[in-house]
């Protein structure tokens, strides 16, 4: 253990001594899998239960396999609009009652929409957990879509979208994503494009709901101080009444055409701090090369010790931050490099350094220490991510829906652990190429006017 002290309290350490540290998280045997129970109701609703009784708290989460990826042209943002509407009115709650009911029972809740799924959750103390089941069952099959409810919520969503439009960084990332992806629906913002949102109708939202919000297209996850048999009984009671309904889910895995040349784009907004980012097409989670892309992101741009931070911030002083990471998406997605330049004029030099470092990553194998650093971080993150019991329902649900199994949560550090330096090199040579990148800059409007 490294704790050698020099003098009173000065740390004496060296890179060498660190290499002797154990490389895998020690501690009690990992009991993660034994905490999970999996079953399915007769109507096709899959159920996951994660038991952790260390705090008297239970999270009930339901996710539906529908999100912004499934929205046709002209209807972007419809899943998100539906998410809003499901908080409005059902056989159990009328407008204004949903949140009040939860708070009056000491609970918390939220909902969110992503590319492939829409999720909702409530967190209650153990004695109130059944209320979460009642609420989610009501949301699944008993929502009402009245024109009067729709009108005001439609305006709320429009205001939410304006918030995005007035955030320079949000506009930059949204438009850069759309420039990098030509065909995959992930190019559309989850909240939708403004004109699409303006034309939503209550009927369209209701149709979307009726098609996608069925038990066989959903996942129920209950996590916390709860036994599987309790969940099974209540799941049958509250969700068993709904009939299975076939849902056709399109596959976009191969949608995006191969990029055949660098793209460049500029966003001008009222800003004083320029930004830049580079997006490369990269493998999705289901591709074995994905795990090498995660390691490449770590070596290039995760933390002060990463190569880009060292070159751009520490050595040359051209930037104040630099990072890189691979998106964790089911389908082939994007590998991002982002830099905060000290000045706009430095961007060309920064770009050259980024490309040189990426080139080096493809030419020379990364060091054992760099590789191990990323692996250790992934192992540590796996443990840290289990800290908040209330988030375990969301984490397990996300793995189940995007990767096919909650077990992937635990397998993830193992898969990263098997990545070799040669695989990282191969990923960089194959994906981080000039023809495969989209380069974006966020610049002040004033610069344009001069």
């Amino acid at each position, binding site marked *: 253990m490294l704790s050698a002290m020099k003098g*009173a309290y000065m740390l004496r350490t060296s890179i060498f001594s660190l290499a002797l540290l154990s490389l895998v998280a020690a501690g009690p045997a990992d009991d993660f899998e034994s905490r999970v129970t999996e079953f399915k109701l007769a109507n096709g609703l899959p159920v996951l239960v994660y038991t952790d009784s260390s705090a008297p708290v239970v999270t009930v989460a339901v996710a539906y396999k529908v999100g912004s990826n499934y929205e046709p042209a002209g209807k972007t943002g419809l899943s998100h609009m539906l998410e809003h509407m499901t908080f409005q009115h059902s056989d159990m709650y009328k407008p204004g009652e949903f949140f009040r009911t939860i708070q009056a029972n000491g609970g918390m809740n939220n909902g969110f929409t992503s590319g492939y799924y829409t999720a909702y959750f409530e967190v209650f103390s153990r004695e109130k957990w059944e209320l979460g089941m009642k609420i989610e069952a009501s949301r699944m099959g008993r929502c009402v879509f009245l024109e009067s409810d729709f009108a005001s919520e439609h305006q709320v969503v429009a205001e939410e979208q304006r918030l995005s439009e007035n955030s320079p960084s949000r506009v930059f990332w949204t438009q850069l994503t759309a420039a990098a992806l030509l065909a995959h629906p992930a190019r559309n913002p989850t909240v939708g494009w403004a004109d699409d949102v303006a034309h939503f109708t209550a009927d369209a939202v209701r149709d979307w709901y009726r098609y996608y919000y069925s038990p066989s297209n959903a996942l129920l996850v209950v996590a916390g101080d709860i036994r599987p048999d309790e969940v099974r009984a209540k799941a049958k009671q509250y969700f068993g009444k709904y009939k299975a309904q076939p849902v056709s889910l399109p596959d976009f895995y191969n949608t995006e055409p191969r990029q055949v040349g660098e793209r460049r784009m500029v966003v001008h907004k009222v800003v004083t701090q320029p930004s830049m980012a580079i997006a490369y097409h990269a493998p999705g989670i289901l591709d074995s090369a994905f795990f090498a892309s995660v390691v490449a992101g770590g070596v290039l741009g995760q933390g002060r010790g990463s190569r880009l931070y060292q070159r751009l911030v520490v050595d040359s002083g051209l930037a104040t931050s630099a990072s890189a990471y691979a998106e964790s998406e089911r389908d082939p997605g994007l590998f991002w490099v982002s830099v905060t330049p000290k000045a706009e004029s430095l961007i060309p030099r920064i770009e050259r350094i980024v490309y040189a470092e990426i080139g080096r990553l493809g030419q020379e194998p990364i060091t054992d220490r760099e590789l191990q650093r990323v692996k250790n971080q992934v192992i540590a993150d796996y443990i840290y991510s289990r800290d908040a019991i209330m988030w375990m329902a969301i984490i397990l649900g996300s793995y189940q829906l995007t990767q096919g199994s909650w077990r992937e949560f635990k397998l993830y550090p193992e898969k990263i652990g098997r990545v070799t330096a040669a695989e990282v090199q191969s990923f960089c040579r194959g994906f981080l190429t000039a023809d495969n990148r989209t380069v974006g800059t966020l610049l002040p409007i004033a610069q344009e006017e001069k």
Partner: protein
Amino acid sequence: MRELDCTLQIRRNRLTRAIIAACAICGLASALPPYRDTLPNGLAVVSYVDHRLPMTDIAFVCRSGSASDPEGKWGLANGTVTLMTRGTKTMTADSIASIVEFLGARFNGYAGNDNSMISLRVLAKDLATGLDLLTDAVRNPGFEVKEVERARAEGMAAVREMSDYPLARVMVDFYQTIFPGHPYAHQAIGDTVSLRTITREDLIAFRKNHYVPNNCFIVAVGDFDRPELLKMIQARFGDMTRGTVPEVKAPDMPFPGKLRVKLIDRPDMNQTYIMFGHPGIAHSDSDRLATNLAAHILGGGALASRIGDAVREEAGLAYEVRTVFDQDRLRGAFWAWVQTAKPKEAIAIMFREIERMQKDGAKKNELDDAQNYFAGSYPIRFSSNQGKLHEAINIELYQLGLDWVDKYPGKIRALTLDEVNRAARERLHPGHYVMVVMGNVKKEDLGLSDVEWIE
């Protein structure tokens, strides 16, 4: 439906409180009680043992934050604690980062209004190493010139990024306008002028004057043996010597005689960002809990409050609308904010609801719901190490006493409608607002009368 998470990073203390107001700070016998030990030199150690996962969170907290920044040196407390994690007398910032990153640990320094904190998250097997890093940062920071300049450039970029973000810009202007000359008027990260003036000597002096054991405490949560941890802490911090810490002086903050409004013209925006309020309460205020309940009923969020119902649910005027009483060591602000394409309508409703709450108070059923929420959601706060850490820091920082976790639900439930309504009556001052408005909007578009415009 997501909350505006991005806004929550703007002013750490104030916004943490906005969240806490939403989550409720409360206590119940369900959580393990924390322990509090004190070293002979006055350094308190609050520990919460939890062997659930092989990880430990430790925070070294100094009771001096950005409110202790000397005049014009805004950002000094934050710069000091940031740089304490970036190099010591024997280790470079790169060496420290190398160890931290290799261990998969987290090691950061930052300041809020009332405190500065170095936080460490580490796997249990690496606890001793992490503690060594923390100790070295506290006791032997290097403040190397290159690191100082790097942090200055980073700070300048952060300030610029924040000012580019409309929500943050309005908030920064609001505090500068409502609290001129007050320790809470400036951002913890400073501004582009003040950051230029901070010298290495300033940083060294701030560390020396404020990081004394009687002005600091440690909170540890996670997988460790308490006696063993105390031994480790005693060995590392036991010979720190006490000191006299400079007091934070704050001028009295008068209520504006009438509505004072600062208008920032932004023709590029398609929404108007509004923040208004008046002087509020201090954390030590005897009416704090009653005021919290009243503020929650009034505008505790966009989704279940009077203002939320009226502005969002009924009129569809905004995604986010909220009212909050800051709770810092010194008296903070009562503030309300909204972002909307229809500022006149939203302002009118918010003014009306605040006035109604001040005049008529809450109803019994509203209070019942709010009390159930505050007291009933307590276990959620304690269902993670991070939650326990934050709660323990609050308890220690504001000297609430360890029994606070047991007393809190009872205190909340014991508050009567009369007490809550008296707090609303005395703490809300309709009309005596300072307001900052930013957007593509003219004075006459806001529907305001009898205004003193701040140019």
